[in-house]
């Protein structure tokens, strides 16, 4: 009787399939991919080594899944316990059987017309206990039953009518779901939120544009803070030891017109370190005070413990859209180092404290000002990869500039609020490259040239292989040490997604979204 009672109690209160501790110890189970970047440190690196530089040329398609929606597919799948979980644009979720690729269930959300700058996209889901979490284009956070896809709760995060939207994969930390917001091309006021995973109640909110009386508010004249942007639309990372969340913020609004918001415009273009329990700001580092080029700092903060200049340090590595690779102390936010990794003209350099020396000629003007990179950046939301095996930081770099013409920027809710129009630089043929940087110096070890600026993330593995893709539909594998091409597949659709890897029934697989398809590949043993 007692045994039965215990069993019932366990069934009722069991934390479910994916307790927090399981995500925390993701390194102990490389067969699964439990969180957006593979681990909380956001390495997008796997210790799986069945697929190697020696056999990757035998990689073959195991199965494909075709998504019905005709939008860019930016999803990064989660995989555990025999099932792959993907988001589909605009904000749907599907569970796929790992063995066959057949769908098990789908969550389909009816979507109103939401103003979004850059496509009706979604980058993935988060899992915690027995639930799955998806942020929606109409700015809700939805909890789904892991087994059925049925809605457990649906929380309104913000008002989509004023162009708040959610495109990122949420991050599950302890008993909370962290979710960021997009919409800085429409004059939103940015924030980062934490929700109780069980109830959907908001636990804390950190406004990335401080209101009256809050520190940093003085960096916004008049009412400019109300439309200040600083969105949080790329999934951050988490350091359990210090209990800090690391999250990048985007551009101030209006994007290109700074006259109405003179000042540093905190906390736009920042890396934030927030207490995961309370949302309190521990430190911030602003890459670009008073950005007028819509450069953003919405990239992946990569957490590494390493020897830096002879000292063991807890570091955060950050390949910024602005063209510089940064190394910061992640406990104090101290600037340690920056090195340029792609063409840039917006800054004349970075001073000893990490503050840029702006190039006034790059600010948008009525007659037009060229600048590198363009507002899509030298990097973007797509993930880099850090390999502890090679000590290299793999980053897809975009080599593209543009000319910006200053225009008016009247604010109306739900309408574009950018303050410039843009033209390509005449005669320029934009290109890109996958670059391997020494993680501790930013020095380029090799590059693999791409036809056009990429939108694909990078995965590296202990098999000595780096996977990535390009806009022409090539999914390819390079030697992690020297960048030599080992394998490629023409998938027929541009790649706007991050690769992952996992094991199923004793075999290693690699998965990528290309065009409208999820493609899963393996090597026959």
């Amino acid at each position, binding site marked *: 009787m007692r045994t039965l009672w215990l069993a019932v109690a366990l069934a009722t209160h069991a934390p479910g399939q994916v307790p927090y501790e399981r995500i925390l110890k993701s390194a102990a189970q490389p067969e699964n991919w439990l969180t957006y970047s593979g681990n909380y440190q956001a390495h997008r690196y796997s210790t799986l080594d069945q697929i190697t530089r020696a056999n990757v040329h035998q990689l073959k398609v195991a199965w494909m899944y075709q998504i019905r929606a*005709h*939008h860019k597919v930016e999803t990064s799948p989660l995989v555990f316990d025999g099932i792959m979980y993907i988001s589909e644009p605009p904000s749907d979720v599907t569970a796929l059987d790992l063995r066959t690729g057949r769908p098990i269930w789908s969550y389909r959300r009816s979507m*109103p*017309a*939401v*103003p*979004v*700058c*850059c*496509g009706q996209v979604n980058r993935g889901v988060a899992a915690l206990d027995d639930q799955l979490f998806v942020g929606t284009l109409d700015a809700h956070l939805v909890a789904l039953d892991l087994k059925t896809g049925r809605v457990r709760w649906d929380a309104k995060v913000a008002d989509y*009518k004023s162009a708040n939207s959610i495109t990122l994969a949420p991050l599950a930390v302890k008993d909370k779901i962290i979710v960021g917001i997009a919409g800085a091309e429409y004059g939103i006021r940015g924030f980062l939120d934490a929700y109780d995973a069980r109830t959907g109640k908001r636990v804390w909110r950190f406004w990335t544009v401080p209101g009256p009386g809050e520190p940093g508010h003085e960096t916004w004249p008049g009412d400019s803070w109300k439309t200040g942007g600083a969105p949080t639309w790329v999934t951050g990372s988490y350091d359990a030891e210090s209990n800090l969340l690391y999250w990048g913020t985007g551009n101030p609004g209006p994007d290109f017109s700074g006259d109405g918001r003179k000042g540093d415009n905190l906390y736009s273009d920042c890396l934030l370190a927030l207490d995961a329990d309370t949302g309190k700001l521990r430190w911030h580092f602003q890459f670009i005070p008073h950005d007028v080029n819509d450069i953003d700092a919405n990239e992946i903060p990569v957490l590494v413990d390493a020897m830096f200049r002879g000292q063991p340090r807890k570091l955060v590595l950050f390949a910024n859209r602005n063209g510089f690779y940064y190394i910061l102390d992640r406990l104090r936010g101290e600037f340690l180092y920056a090195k340029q990794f792609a063409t840039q003209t917006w800054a004349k350099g970075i001073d000893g404290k990490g503050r840029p020396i702006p190039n006034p000629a790059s600010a948008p003007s009525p007659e037009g000002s060229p600048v590198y990179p363009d507002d899509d950046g030298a990097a973007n939301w797509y993930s880099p990869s850090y390999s502890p095996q090679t000590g290299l930081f793999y980053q897809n770099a975009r080599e593209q500039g543009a000319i910006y*013409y200053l*225009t*008016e*920027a*009247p604010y*109306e*809710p*739900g*309408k*574009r609020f*950018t303050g*410039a*129009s*843009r*033209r*390509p630089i005449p*005669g320029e*043929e934009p290109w890109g490259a996958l670059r391997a940087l020494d993680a501790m110096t930013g020095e380029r070890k090799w590059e693999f*040239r*791409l*036809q056009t600026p990429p939108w694909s993330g990078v995965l590296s593995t202990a098999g000595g292989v780096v996977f990535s893709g*390009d806009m*022409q*539909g*090539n999914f*390819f594998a390079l030697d992690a040490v020297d960048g030599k091409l080992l394998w*490629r597949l*023409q998938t027929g659709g541009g790649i706007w997604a991050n690769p992952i890897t996992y094991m199923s029934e004793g075999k290693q697989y690699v998965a990528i979204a290309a065009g409208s398809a999820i493609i899963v590949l393996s090597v026959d043993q």
Partner: protein
Amino acid sequence: MRRASVALLLCCVVLAAQDPAEATRKPVTTPEDLAAGERIYRIQCAYCHGTQGEGGRGATLARPRLLHAPDDQAMFQAIARGIPDSEMPGHWFTAREIWQVVAFVRTLGRLAPQKISGDPASGEKLYAGKGGCARCHTVGGRGGAIGPDLSDIGARRSVNYLREALLKPESAVPADFLQVEVAARGGVRITGVRLNEDAFSIQIRDLSGRFRSFWKSELAELNKQRGKSPMPSYQGFLTAAELDDVIAYLDSQRGAQ
């Protein structure tokens, strides 16, 4: 009833721009509307479509027919709802604002008529005969495939532009036109026009019109001759009067009506 009211309210608030009565109303075209449309365009649309509709991240709008907006109703819907499978978002303009933008965008596709002295009929003979234009260009589905299709060139380009293109072809190379010269391993050199390219391969049409595909690993050389054109200059080859005739003929090519 409550649900119906909510739904009705949503229609009014969210989809005001898609109210059928508003969406089918005759487009506004007063000078004030055009000016208002231009102002909205400059701020909201030019970012992607270019200040003159020349395109960029968004489609080129400075042409008479638009793929997703063959008529004004379709353009209204494209602006209001966005275009699936593209980065064109829906917009929260009022119906009037959308019509103002539609009216302005249509002006981008209409180049002011310029006076032409030549004779189109004579120009057609020169085009097919002495000029040899049809070897490389297509008009009305006939002709070569090396150069751009000229079937609607009169609607897309000004007379001044056409004259310049005939006299100095390399001053008028379209942005997506790239002449390439490849040397295959083994020594064969081929000049052609790039059809497509990725990191691993390139597809070209050689100057005889033949399709060729190469893995880059098969090539000893790949020269991209940006700004170059296989088109000869007609300076001195056609008389001034003949040139006017050819321009008049090209200007008369407005595509299928």
